[in-house]
C-alpha cells in the first residue's frame, strides 16, 4: 500500500519548516492581495473576537456573488456558491476566544462526521494566530437559530463557506493581542512579532497569549479591521497535519451520541413495520412486553412502537416480542422492476440532434440501483422533553431546521429547544436528516422521561434513507474529430431535500439560474456538468415517486451522472479511433483537468500491457471548483472473481488505484488524501457490489453481510492519491469529491477487461442474491450467542 507524497501526507511527527516570525504589518488599509476583514472585539474578561461567518470582505465581492446565465451553470456557479450566497444576508458571528492558558477556542457551526473539518478549521486558526495546532480547540456549536442557512453541513461546503470568517476571527484576535502588548510595553505595534503563541517585542521582551488575553479583553463591543495573511506567508495551511481528534479515536475516548451519559436517559428502541413507512395501528401485547426484564416503558409513536429499558439488549428482546398491527406502507407490493418501470415511463426524451447525417451516434442507457447511505453508527439521539423545554443530543447537519421543526410541533418558542450537535460516526448524507432525533423527542414526550434512542442495524438498512434508484440516458454525436452534441437525461426516484437545503433554495429561488426549476432540478444543474468540450450539451433531470425515504449519499447525482458520461466517453474514443486517455486529454475543458489526467496516466503507467481479463480504466470529474482523475486496474479473471470469502461478496477486484486531485487551495493534504481514499472505496462499492434489493415494499438487506460495502477482500492492494499543487487562492470541496471519478473509472475498466459495457450498477445487482434475507416480522434479528466460538 503506498501513497504518493506531495508533500509527505503524514510524516511521523510534524516537522515544522522553520518559519520566520510573523511580522506585524503597519496599520495601513489593505492593499491588493491583502484581504481586509471587519469584525468585533466582544466584551468580556478575556479576549473574545467575533467575525461574520461569511466575510464582509473589503477586498472585493465574495466569490460567487455574480450569478451567470445558462448553459452549464455548474461551471461557474455551483451548489457551494449557492450555499455561500444563501448565507450572506443572514450571516451572524462566529467567535474565537483566547483562554488564560493561551489556547484558542472556537465552536464550529457545522457537524464533524469524519470529514476532518475540526482539524482543517483548527489549522486556519493556528495559521492566523501563529499558535501551535495543539493549542487550538475546535468544538461543535449547538444549534444557533440566528445563523439560519449558515449551519448546514453538506455539499462538501464547510471549508469553502467558512474559510474567510474563521481566519478573520483569528486574525482579529492576534491583532488585539498585539495591541495589548504594544500598550503594555509602550512600543509601536509594528515592532512586535508573534510566533508559537508568544508576542515578541524589542529588547527580547515576550509575553504568551495567555498572559495578554485579559489585557486584550474589552469591556465594550469594538468594531475593528484587520488584514489576513497572504498565501505566500502560510506556514500551516497546506502542510500535512494529522487529525486533532485522532488520539481520542484510537483510545475509545471519542464520544459519539450514544456515549454521552445523560442522567435518566435509558436505552430506547423502536419496533418498526414490515414494509417501508408502514405505521402502527395497535399494540396487542403491551402489558406482556412491559413486564419483560428491564423494560420500563412501551408507547406507540408515529413511526412504530417505542420501548425503553435498562439495556439495549433488553430493548432488542422487547422489540422482537411486540405484537403490533400495522397500517400499510408507502410502497407496499412494489419490487425493483416496478420502480424501474416507473422511471422508464418518466424518462424525458432525447432530442434528435440537428447534425450532419454523416455524424456517428453513441448512445447508452444506464440503471443505478438503490444504495444505502447508512453510516456505521446507526441513527441515534438523546432527548429530554420537560415542561420547561426540550434538550436533544444528536449528530445533526441541519440542527436549526430540526430545532424549528420541534418547536413548531410542540408549540414552544425555538429558544426553549436546545440542540447539542454531537460527533458523528459517519454520515454520507444520513445526518442531513433528523429522523432519529425526531423519534427520540416523540418517545421522550410519550414516556415523560429522557431517552437514549438507537436504531437497530437491520432497521437502518430497511427503513433508513437510501440513495434513490435512477436511470441515465446519454446520446452523443461525433463527426470528423469533433463531438457535436452531448445529451443526458437523468431520471430518478425523488431525492428528499426537506432538510434545510430545500428552504435555502426556496429563499434563493428568484436568483437561481433559470428561476423556475424545482429544487431537485436546480440542484442537478448546480452539481452536474460535462467535463469535456462536447459541442452542444444538454443535461436534464426528472424525478418521480416520493414514497421512498431518500437522501444524498456522499454526493447527490454526480457519481451516477459521471459514470454514464465516462462510459459514453470511452465509446466516443472508440468511434474516434483514439484511446480513453488521449481522447479525454484532447476534449477536456480545462488545463486543470488535463493536468490531473496526465498525472494519473504517468504515475499509473497508462497503456501498459496487461493479461486478458484485466484492464485499466480512466475517468475525470469536475465539481466543487476542483478537478480530479482516477486510473484503476481491475482483475475480472475467473480465479479472482470466484474467490471464496464466508458471507462476503468477492467478484472482480480492483487491484490498483491512482488518483490525482486538485481542489484549488489545499488546506490539509493528509486530510484530503484520506477523503479521496474513502471516496475510492465508495466508488468501488457502487460500481461492483453495493445495493439494496426492493421486494414487495421492503428492502431485503438487513446486515453488513447482506449489503456489500467494500471490505478488506475488496480493497485494492495499491492505492495512490496524489495531491496536486494548489491552483487557486480559495479552497474547494473534498468530502464527496472522490466518489464520482472512482466509480466511473472502475466501470470503464470493467468494460475494457470484459469487453462488455455494463448498463446496471452495481454490476452484481441482477446476479443471484448473495445472502438469505432476514425475516421482516419481527423486524430485527436476535443477537447471536456463539461469539466465544469465533474468538481468534
Amino acid at each position, binding site marked *: 500500500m503506498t501513497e504518493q507524497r506531495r508533500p509527505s501526507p503524514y510524516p511521523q511527527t510534524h516537522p515544522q519548516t522553520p518559519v520566520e516570525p510573523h511580522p506585524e504589518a503597519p496599520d495601513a488599509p489593505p492593499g491588493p492581495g491583502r484581504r481586509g476583514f471587519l469584525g468585533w472585539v466582544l466584551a468580556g474578561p478575556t479576549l473574545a473576537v467575533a467575525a461574520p461567518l461569511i466575510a464582509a470582505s473589503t477586498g472585493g465581492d465574495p466569490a460567487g456573488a455574480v450569478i451567470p446565465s445558462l448553459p452549464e451553470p455548474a461551471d461557474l456557479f455551483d451548489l457551494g456558491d449557492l450555499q455561500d450566497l444563501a448565507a450572506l444576508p443572514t450571516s451572524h458571528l462566529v467567535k474565537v476566544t483566547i483562554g488564560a492558558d493561551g489556547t484558542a477556542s472556537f465552536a464550529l457551526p457545522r457537524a464533524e462526521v469524519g470529514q476532518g473539518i475540526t482539524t482543517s478549521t483548527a489549522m486556519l486558526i493556528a495559521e492566523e494566530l501563529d499558535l501551535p495546532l495543539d493549542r487550538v480547540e475546535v468544538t461543535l456549536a449547538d444549534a444557533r437559530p440566528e445563523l439560519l442557512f449558515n449551519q448546514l453541513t453538506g455539499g462538501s461546503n464547510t471549508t469553502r463557506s467558512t474559510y474567510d470568517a474563521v481566519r478573520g476571527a483569528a486574525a482579529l484576535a492576534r491583532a488585539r493581542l498585539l495591541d495589548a502588548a504594544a500598550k503594555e510595553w509602550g512600543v509601536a505595534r509594528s515592532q512586535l512579532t508573534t510566533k508559537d503563541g508568544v508576542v515578541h517585542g524589542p529588547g527580547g521582551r515576550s509575553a504568551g497569549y495567555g498572559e495578554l488575553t485579559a489585557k486584550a479583553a474589552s469591556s465594550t463591543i469594538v468594531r475593528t479591521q484587520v488584514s489576513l495573511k497572504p498565501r505566500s506567508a502560510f506556514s500551516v495551511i497546506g502542510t500535512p497535519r494529522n487529525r486533532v481528534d485522532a488520539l481520542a479515536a484510537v483510545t475509545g475516548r471519542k464520544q459519539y451520541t450514544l456515549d454521552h451519559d445523560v442522567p435518566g436517559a435509558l436505552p430506547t428502541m423502536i419496533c418498526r413495520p414490515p414494509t417501508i413507512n408502514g405505521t402502527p395501528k395497535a399494540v396487542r401485547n403491551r402489558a406482556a412486553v412491559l413486564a419483560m426484564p428491564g423494560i420500563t416503558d412501551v408507547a406507540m409513536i408515529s413511526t412504530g412502537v417505542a420501548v425503553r429499558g435498562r439495556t439495549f439488549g433488553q430493548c432488542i428482546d422487547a422489540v422482537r416480542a411486540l405484537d403490533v398491527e400495522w397500517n400499510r406502507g408507502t410502497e407496499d407490493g412494489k419490487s425493483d422492476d416496478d420502480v424501474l418501470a416507473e422511471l422508464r415511463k418518466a424518462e424525458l426524451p432525447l432530442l434528435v440532434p440537428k447534425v450532419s447525417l454523416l455524424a456517428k451516434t453513441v448512445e447508452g442507457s444506464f440503471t443505478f440501483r438503490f444504495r444505502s447511505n447508512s453510516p456505521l453508527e446507526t441513527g441515534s439521539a438523546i432527548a429530554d422533553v420537560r415542561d420547561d423545554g426540550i434538550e436533544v443530543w444528536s449528530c445533526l447537519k441541519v440542527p436549526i431546521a430540526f430545532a424549528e421543526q420541534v418547536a413548531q410541533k410542540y408549540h414552544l418558542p425555538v429558544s426553549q429547544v436546545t440542540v447539542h450537535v454531537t460527533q458523528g460516526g*459517519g454520515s454520507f448524507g444520513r445526518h442531513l436528516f433528523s429522523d432519529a432525533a425526531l423519534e427520540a423527542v416523540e418517545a421522550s414526550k410519550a414516556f415523560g422521561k429522557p431517552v437514549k434512542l438507537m436504531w437497530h442495524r437491520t432497521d437502518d438498512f430497511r427503513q433508513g434513507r437510501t440513495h434513490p434508484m435512477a436511470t441515465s440516458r446519454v446520446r452523443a454525436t461525433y463527426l470528423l474529430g469533433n463531438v457535436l452534441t452531448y445529451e443526458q437525461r437523468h431520471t430518478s426516484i425523488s431525492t428528499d431535500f426537506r432538510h434545510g437545503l430545500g428552504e435555502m433554495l426556496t429563499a434563493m429561488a428568484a436568483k437561481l439560474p433559470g428561476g423556475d426549476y424545482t429544487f431537485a432540478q436546480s440542484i442537478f444543474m448546480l452539481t452536474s456538468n460535462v467535463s469535456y468540450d462536447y459541442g452542444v450539451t444538454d443535461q436534464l433531470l426528472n424525478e418521480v415517486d416520493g414514497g421512498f425515504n431518500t437522501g444524498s449519499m456522499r454526493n447527490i447525482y454526480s457519481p451516477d451522472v459521471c459514470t454514464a458520461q465516462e462510459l459514453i466517453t470511452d465509446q466516443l474514443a472508440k468511434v474516434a479511433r483514439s484511446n480513453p486517455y488521449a481522447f479525454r486529454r484532447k476534449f477536456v475543458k480545462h488545463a486543470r483537468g488535463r493536468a490531473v489526467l496526465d498525472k494519473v496516466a504517468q504515475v499509473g503507467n497508462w497503456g501498459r500491457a496487461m493479461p486478458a481479463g484485466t484492464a485499466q480504466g480512466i475517468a475525470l470529474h469536475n465539481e466543487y471548483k476542483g478537478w480530479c482523475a482516477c486510473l484503476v486496474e481491475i482483475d475480472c479473471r475467473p480465479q479472482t472473481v470466484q474467490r471464496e470469502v464466508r458471507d462476503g461478496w468477492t467478484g472482480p477486484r480492483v487491484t490498483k488505484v491512482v488518483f490525482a486531485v486538485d481542489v484549488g487551495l489545499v488546506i490539509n493534504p493528509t486530510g484530503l488524501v484520506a477523503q479521496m481514499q474513502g471516496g475510492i472505496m465508495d466508488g468501488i462499492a457502487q460500481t461492483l457490489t453495493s445495493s439494496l434489493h426492493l421486494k414487495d415494499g421492503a428492502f431485503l438487506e438487513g446486515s*453488513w453481510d447482506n449489503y456489500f460495502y467494500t471490505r478488506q477482500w475488496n480493497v485494492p492492494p495499491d492505492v495512490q492519491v496524489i495531491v496536486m499543487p494548489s491552483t487557486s487562492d480559495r479552497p474547494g470541496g473534498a468530502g464527496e469529491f472522490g466518489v464520482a471519478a472512482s466509480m466511473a473509472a472502475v466501470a470503464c475498466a470493467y468494460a475494457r477487461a470484459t469487453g462488455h459495457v455494463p448498463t446496471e450498477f452495481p454490476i452484481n445487482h441482477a446476479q443471484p442474491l448473495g445472502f438469505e434475507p432476514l425475516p421482516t416480522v419481527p423486524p430485527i434479528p436476535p443477537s447471536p*450467542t456463539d461469539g466465544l466460538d469465533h474468538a481468534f
Partner: protein
Amino acid sequence: MPTHTFLLNGKRVSVDVADDVRLLWVLRDLLGVTGPKYGCGLEVCKACTSHINGKAFNPCAVPVGQLNEDDEITTIEGLPATVGRELHPMQEAWLEADVAQCGYCQPGQIMAAVAKVRQKGGALTDADFDEIRNICRCGTYARIREAINQGASRM
C-alpha cells in the same frame, strides 16, 4: 437477578443482570465502558471487537452468563495496560498513519488488528487481511493496512 463477576481491563467487576444480556450492553449500558461500539449486534460489523483472555471476540454475541469469573475482558480502554504503556504500539501506528476518519469503527479495528497480528505472528499478507471482517464505512482501509503492518513490526 444473577450476579456476574469477571475481570475488566485489569479490575474485578460485578454486575447484576440477567444471564442472556449480551456482554456489549453490560459493558456500555451498565458499566459505562463505551469504547466498544454498536454497529449491528449481529457479530458482523465487528465495531465492538474486544479481547477475552487475549483473543479477539465480539461482546455483542456473548451472553454475560457465559463468562467465568477468571475471564479477562480487555476493551480498547484497557489495551495500553496490557503492554504497560500509555499507548499500545498498534495505537501508535494508527496515529502515525492518521487512520481514523469518523473514528467509530477504529477501536474495533485496532483490537482485531492486535489479535490478528498475534495469531499470524507478524505482518499480515493479502490473504490474512481477507480475514479481517471489520467494516469501515468511511473507507479508511488503505491506511488500516499500512498501520497494521507498521504496528506488527513493533509488537
